[in-house]
């Protein structure tokens, strides 16, 4: 009996694990204000760097311990999930809008327009993204929205590459030709014929870009030019805990592991989608 796409996905362990991680993080991020045990911003200088409750010297009141200012680590971690997810999603929306527009136009029209699109992609790829993001954050003063904007403006290249090549593949297929013959407008062909048929490919890119955006936000915050303190970005938590890591390794292990697991989950999800389509976009 032939298996449906959904059935095949559910038998893919990568998909199940990835989906579970992403779903769990999403729920935690949405419910953050209601499920945190303590206020993530509440400072308690009497109880600094208390180890997690399962470690020696831990306190059952703080499951993951407290940070260098006595703030509950679990509560900060939960709010950090919110920051990572929101930055990931908003960046994908911004970069997707830019990249897909450019890619579809280039792939659809070809010729001079395509030359221009390819030129934009080449130029974008030659710009060192992390460095430019750091410089812009330093010049404009870093804020949550600035990080989203900068990452969105920098990470559209893969969207454009994939949208362009997939559009090229389908623009001469029969159903597109049939739409033209039916006398519909150019806008109709682009939005009703082309876009839906490249959507799955774009979904895979979206997961890759989301993972990249989450990692880059953490790196920027780690370098002190991402999300400003006291917001509990996971990158910022690692940065603030760095001074103490040689005495208390758990202070950087915990936020780093959270970051790693979330990014792994998003990537696993993307990989399963790619397997499902039987195409290889890893290049």
């Amino acid at each position, binding site marked *: 009996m032939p298996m449906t796409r959904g059935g095949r996905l559910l038998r893919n362990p990568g998909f199940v694990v990835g989906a579970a991680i992403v779903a769990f993080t999403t729920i935690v991020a949405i419910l953050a204000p209601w499920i945190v045990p303590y206020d993530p911003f509440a400072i308690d200088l009497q109880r600094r760097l208390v180890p997690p409750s399962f470690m020696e010297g831990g306190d059952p009141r703080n499951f993951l311990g407290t940070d260098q200012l006595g703030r509950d680590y679990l509560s900060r971690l939960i709010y950090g999930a919110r920051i990572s997810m929101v930055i990931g999603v908003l960046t994908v929306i911004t970069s997707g809008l830019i990249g897909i527009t450019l890619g579809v136009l280039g792939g659809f029209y070809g010729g001079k327009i395509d030359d221009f699109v390819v030129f934009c992609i*080449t130029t974008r790829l030659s710009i060192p993204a992390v460095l430019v993001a750091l410089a812009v954050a330093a010049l404009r003063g870093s804020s949550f929205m600035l990080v989203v904007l900068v990452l969105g403006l920098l990470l559209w290249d893969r969207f454009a590459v994939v949208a362009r090549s997939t559009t090229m593949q389908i623009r001469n297929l029969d159903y597109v030709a049939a739409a033209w013959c039916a006398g519909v407008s150019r806008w109709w062909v682009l939005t009703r014929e082309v876009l839906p048929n490249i959507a799955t490919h774009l979904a895979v890119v979206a997961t890759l870009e989301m993972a990249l955006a989450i*990692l880059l936000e*953490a790196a920027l915050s780690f370098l002190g*030019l991402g999300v400003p303190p006291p917001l509990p970005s996971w990158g910022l938590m690692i940065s603030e805990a760095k001074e103490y890591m040689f005495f208390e390794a758990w202070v950087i292990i915990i936020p780093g592991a959270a970051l790693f697991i979330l990014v792994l989950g998003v990537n696993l999800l993307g990989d399963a989608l790619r397997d499902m389509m039987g195409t290889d976009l890893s290049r």
Partner: protein
Amino acid sequence: MLRFFLRRFAVAVLVALTVLTLAFMLTRLSGDLAISIAGPNATAEDVETIRRVYGLDRPVWVQYFDWLGRAVQGDFGESYFFRDRVANLIGARMPVTLTLGLVGLVIALVVSLPLGILAAVREGSWVDRAVALFAMIGQAMPSFWLGLVLMIVFGLQLGWLPISGVETWEGFVLPGVVLAFSAIPSLTRLTRSGMIEALSSDYIRTARAKGLSRLSILVKHGFRNAAIPVVSIAAVQLGFMLGGSVVIETVFALHGVGFLAWESISKNDFPVVQAVVLVLALIYIALTLLADLLNAVLDPRLRTA
């Protein structure tokens, strides 16, 4: 062939000019550059003086062409903070960054080529799946965090390697490994898919029919063909790795170009930032150009593209 080279070269020059313009625009993002340079404690007179001294009172397009004219000659002006020519600063720091990039690339190749070949030979087996999982883990690893964890394990607990600095070659090991992780996933996947394609081709069947040894088939016939895309992607990856070295150099306090950029960013030293962005972009453009030409030489089918 010549037409392909010329066209590709012209595009590279055009991209370089666009990046030059973007680098100029980047520093004007702050609105008033003189105020940023002067810092928070400066008086209005200080700002005026700075504006005059640095020529910021001229129209923007005059500043742009002045800067462009100098930049194409390799003159990036003077650092506000270090009181030295920017070109000297970058020149002095470049060897560390290049060494780090090359060490990272070599480690990446040493890891990904055998893994990719192994996965291809045993396609679909548990080995193949394990390699895919390894690539997946590498892709999800936050580089700065991996750096810190390796510092704790190898620097502090085992005491095998220095935690920062590059006074000896050992200092390059940990940052090199971390940097390699950014290229290992894609290089491994590419080697695997290239090998699978090569191994299923007719000339491999012929080689098998001739009774050649398994190793000879793998290396001489399979890998040599699979290596073509890997070579070009490796060049491109090197460019990405140099661009990403800012994070790793900061973590390990390696005084390379990335660290210089980070220092300059925090000190509002814009000529340096601008120049580093530019130099890294130009290296990337040169490397991709090289990769394309190399590809065209190795694989004649691509020349008409």
